[in-house]
Each structure stands twice: as C-alpha cells, then as structure tokens.
C-alpha cells in the first residue's frame, strides 16, 4: 500500500522490545506506528539513528507513552523511514528502555491492552470499557463500498425489530449499539471507524430482522457495502465454513441478549449449571482443538470473581474450542464449556477452516475479525453488567420491599 513503509507486521509475532532492538541495530530513522483494536488511537514512536527520541500514545507523550506501549501485546506495527524533525525528548538508552518496559509490564505497572485471556484481566477490562472504550475495526477496504451516507447526532441508523439487510462500515465517527426494553435503552457496545453495522445474518436469510438499534453519536459517515458481492462470496464458501459463521453470529446475538437478561435479573446461573460435565476448563488449554455439537446442549461460562457468568448456549451444529485464527476472548482462555447429560460432540479440522478464512476477501475478513473483537468485548460487558447488578442488588431489594 504505502511505499515508504519499510517494515510492518504483527505485535504477537514481534514484540515491541524486539522491534526496538531491530531498529536499533540497523540504526534506522523514522516513525514506528502501532495499531491496537482495543485502543482508540494509534501509538507512535519516533526514532533517530536507531534510538527512540519521542513517543505518543493518546494524550501521553515522551517516555511514559513509550512505556505504556509495551502493554500492547497484540495488534500491528509499521515502520516508515522518514526524516524526524522533532526534538529529542527521550534520552534513556535503548536497552534501558526495553528492559525497564518489560519489567514494568511484568510488575503489572503497565496496563495490558488486548483481548481478554484470563479472568484476572477483568479489572483491566473494566477500565478499558469506560466511556471512551470504542471498538474499532481494521482499515476500510473501499473496494466494497458502493455509496456513502451521513447521519447526524442521535439519528437512528437501524432500529431493532425492523427488516433490513444493508451492511455499513463506519468511515468516520462513533455509533452506539443499544437494545430497546420497556424501561428504555440498554447500551451494548460503542463502535468506531472500521467497525461494521449489520450482521452476517443479513445475507444468510431473506427478510432479516435487526437485532439491535444503532444510534449515531455525533456526526457519522458510513459506507454502504456491496451486499450482493458479499452474499455471492458467502454463497461460494463451503458448508462447513458457513455453519461456522452462522454459529459465530448466533453467539453474538446471544451475548447481546444476555446483557439485557442480566440487566433485568431474569437469569439464574446456578440452576443452569446443574448436572453438567466440563468439556473445556477456563484458562487450562490442554489441547487446541475445535469441536462441533452433534446433540444436546453446551454452555459457555466465564468464571469471574463474582461467580460464574453464562455467556451463551450452543446447540447442534455450533462449534466450540480453540479457533486458531480468531480471538473470541471466550473458551479456552476466557471461559469454561459445560455439556448437558446427553451431549455428543465431534472434532473438526481447524486447518481447513483457517485456509478458507485466509482466502476471504479483505472486507469479509474484516467483518469476521470485527465481529470477533465485538464478541470479546461484549462478553466482558456481560460479566460487568452482572457484577454491577450484584453491587446494586441490595439497594434494589430494599426498594422492591417498599
């Protein structure tokens, strides 16, 4: 794409410490840009002859910004060679910065920003999901954008319960996804540039009904996607992959519904968990395997400090287990799978799914990735809404007693 990009890749593969050493030993001058889907802005580090001279992460600058970027354990980076005119604001030696950064990370003084992997990250996620938490998508692929539309502050883009099959990508601006209930609207998630509005179910079935309402926060520019082209691509996929996508979509829908249920307090975790056998235990990935439910019911449950939280239920045809190419933030790292008495499961080959995933068009891949990110974040919101529910439960009891 950009010709001046000299080096780019994934932070999962090459950590910031390694990149700084690499740029250091090659004595490069330029800008290192870091992109993390869980952070609202990209991070920048400026290098002169291999030494970092300044950095920026959101509002913070200089050395503090550079240290904070060590917490970006996932995401992507790109280094562009260009002349740096900025002042030298960082004077610490390269290796000193790296070792100090790693130490701060290990000491827990730097916040890790990435998909939730274990339950002890719950505290981090809470902070992350403050008002500013916005799920951003990958760079927009304009190939599939057929039209642009503008929406003004507070305008409804789609409304829950109405029919519609358009899919939009947010070109600029922020959109709130909410569920309408009798008592008003329950916020589900806030999404930003590169995220998608409308689910894959749009081209799965005719006459798709919207599952939630999307409201513009400030002025928003949307790109209408070529749904015919996407539907064609979808039609050309293997049955296995389509089932996989449908299953993903079902999970997303359930997670959204769950927020509403926990909000109403209309769910009893302990009853649901009765007489179930554990199929995969949270944070103990003994084997990386993908399964499909053949019969019976499986439940995805996250263990939190405040007790187990049911995220969703899986039925015949749904998959569970380790998906090597997507970060769902659920099992195996972030959730346990329970099976009903009569459950039957079969192993599936993740390799063929992965190959098919890799062949997807950029836009389709973006939709799937964005959905995975949203699922990971929504799962955390589910847990949070239960926890905040518990905190206010005492108050409620009193009020109900009156």
């Amino acid at each position, binding site marked *: 794409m950009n010709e001046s990009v000299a080096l780019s890749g994934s932070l999962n593969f090459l*950590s910031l*410490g*390694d990149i700084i050493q690499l740029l250091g*030993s*090659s*004595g490069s001058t330029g800008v290192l840009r870091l992109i993390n889907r869980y952070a609202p802005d990209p991070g920048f580090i400026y290098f002169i002859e291999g030494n970092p001279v300044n950095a920026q992460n959101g509002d913070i600058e200089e050395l503090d910004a550079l240290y904070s970027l060590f917490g970006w354990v996932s995401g992507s980076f790109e280094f562009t060679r260009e002349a740096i005119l900025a002042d030298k604001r960082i004077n610490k*030696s390269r*290796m*000193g910065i*790296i*070792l*100090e950064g*790693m*130490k701060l*990370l*290990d*000491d827990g003084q730097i916040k890790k920003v990435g998909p939730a992997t274990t339950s002890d990250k719950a505290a981090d996620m809470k902070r992350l999901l403050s008002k500013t938490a916005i799920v951003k998508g990958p760079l927009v692929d304009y190939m599939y954008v057929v039209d642009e539309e503008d929406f003004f502050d507070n305008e409804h883009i789609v409304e829950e319960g109405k029919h519609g099959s358009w899919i939009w990508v947010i070109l600029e601006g922020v959109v709130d996804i909410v569920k309408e209930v009798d008592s008003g609207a329950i916020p589900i998630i806030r999404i930003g540039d590169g995220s998608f509005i409308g689910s894959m179910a749009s081209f799965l079935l005719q006459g798709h009904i919207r599952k939630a309402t999307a409201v513009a926060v400030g002025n928003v520019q949307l790109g209408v996607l070529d749904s015919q082209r996407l539907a064609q691509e979808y039609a050309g996929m293997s049955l296995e992959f389509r089932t996989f996508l449908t299953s993903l979509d079902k999970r997303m829908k359930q997670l959204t519904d769950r927020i509403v249920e926990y909000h109403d307090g209309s769910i009893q975790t302990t009853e649901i968990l009765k007489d179930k056998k554990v199929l995969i235990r949270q944070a103990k990935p003994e084997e990386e395997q993908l399964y499909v439910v053949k019969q019976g019911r499986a439940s995805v449950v996250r263990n939190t400090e405040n007790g187990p939280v049911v995220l969703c239920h899986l039925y015949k045809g749904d998959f569970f287990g380790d998906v090597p190419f997507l970060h769902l933030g659920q099992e195996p790292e972030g959730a346990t799978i329970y099976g009903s008495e009569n459950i039957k499961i079969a192993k599936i080959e993740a390799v063929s799914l992965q190959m098919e995933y890799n062949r997807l068009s950029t836009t389709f891949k973006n939709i799937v990735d964005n959905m995975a990110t949203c699922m990971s974040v929504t799962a955390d919101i589910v847990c949070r809404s239960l926890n905040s529910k518990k905190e206010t439960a005492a108050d409620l009891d009193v009020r109900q007693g009156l």
Partner: protein
Amino acid sequence: MAIFNLKKREIECKVVYYGPGRCGKTTNLEYVFKSYKKQVTGEMVSINTEGDRTLFFDFLPIGLGKIKGCDIRVQLYTVPGQVKYSSTRKLVLRGVDGIVFVADSLEVRREKNMISLKDLQSNLKEYGKSIFKVPLIMQYNKRDLADEGIPLMSIEQMDRDLNRQLKVPSFPGSAVKGTGVGATLKGCLIETLKSLQREFKWAK
C-alpha cells in the same frame, strides 16, 4: 543466534548470567564493567527488579580474534530470577549465544542452585534450546567466604550436584573480590565463539 551487522561489520552475540537469587550474577557483571572499562562500550543499564537487579551492557572482547573478518561485540545480561518476570526473561533469553551459570557455594543454598539450574533448562526448552547444546559455563561463586568460617560446599560436591551430566567447564570464583570473574567470562566467550564457528562451518 548471533546478529550480523553488515553495516558495522560486526557480529553481535548475547551472553547471559543465570543463577539463583543473590548468587552474585550482578556482582560478576559489575566487576567486569569496572575492571574492563576500556572494552565496555556505552553505559551500564541497571533495572531494579524484585529481589535482584537486572544489568545490561555491551562488551568488546579483545584477543579472541575475528570471525570472517568481523569484529565481535558481546551483549552481557543478567536475568531476573523471579517467576513473574517472564517477559523480561523471554526477551533476554531469546537468541542467547552463551550462558554463565553462577552457583552459590554456601551449603544452605545447595537446593536453590539445583532448582535454578532446572529452571534454566525448562526456560531454554521453551525457547527451543537444549541445555546440553547451548554453550554453558559454571562458576562456583563466593569461595572467599570459607576464610570467614562459613560452611561451603566443596568444588567436588558442586560438580557432582550440578555438573555431573552437563560436564561443562567450571571455575571457582569470588565475584566480590574479582577472583575468577575474568576467567569465567573468557571461558564462556571461548565456548560461545567455538560454537558460532561450528555453526558457520556447518552453514558453508
């Protein structure tokens, strides 16, 4: 995995001091830094990690020759022993070319030495290296404490404890006084360069 810097015609390799907490890794490196000042390039980086300090500096060995006309630059590191410093350990141990295992001669630390060595083995394994193949040197540190009447293990016993299977070169030392520090480092560099030479011949 040494790094070839073609611009500077240098081969950069990494030597790591490993060992149980308070065994004298840091003292070893501080002594090297002080006594071989001329061969040290740049400053010493010192990070306070819980229970230990993590040190780093660049070192230019003299009199060990060149490889294929390239100068050799050695990065010397200590690694924090605490379990929680996994990111630091990973960064330091990745691509390590040579290791000095500093063992504590105090009788009461016998078990600590063995645990740490075992730990080194499993850490190396995680990064795809075998403790039997990586250039490794042992230093039995704190020999000077015998003069003060503190019970120490004999060299023979330490060799039996730690070096029976590995059979790597070992040196007695006293990092506080500087005895054996140079010999240990030199021993490790020789082993490291030998191993690099082997690699290049194999690659030819």
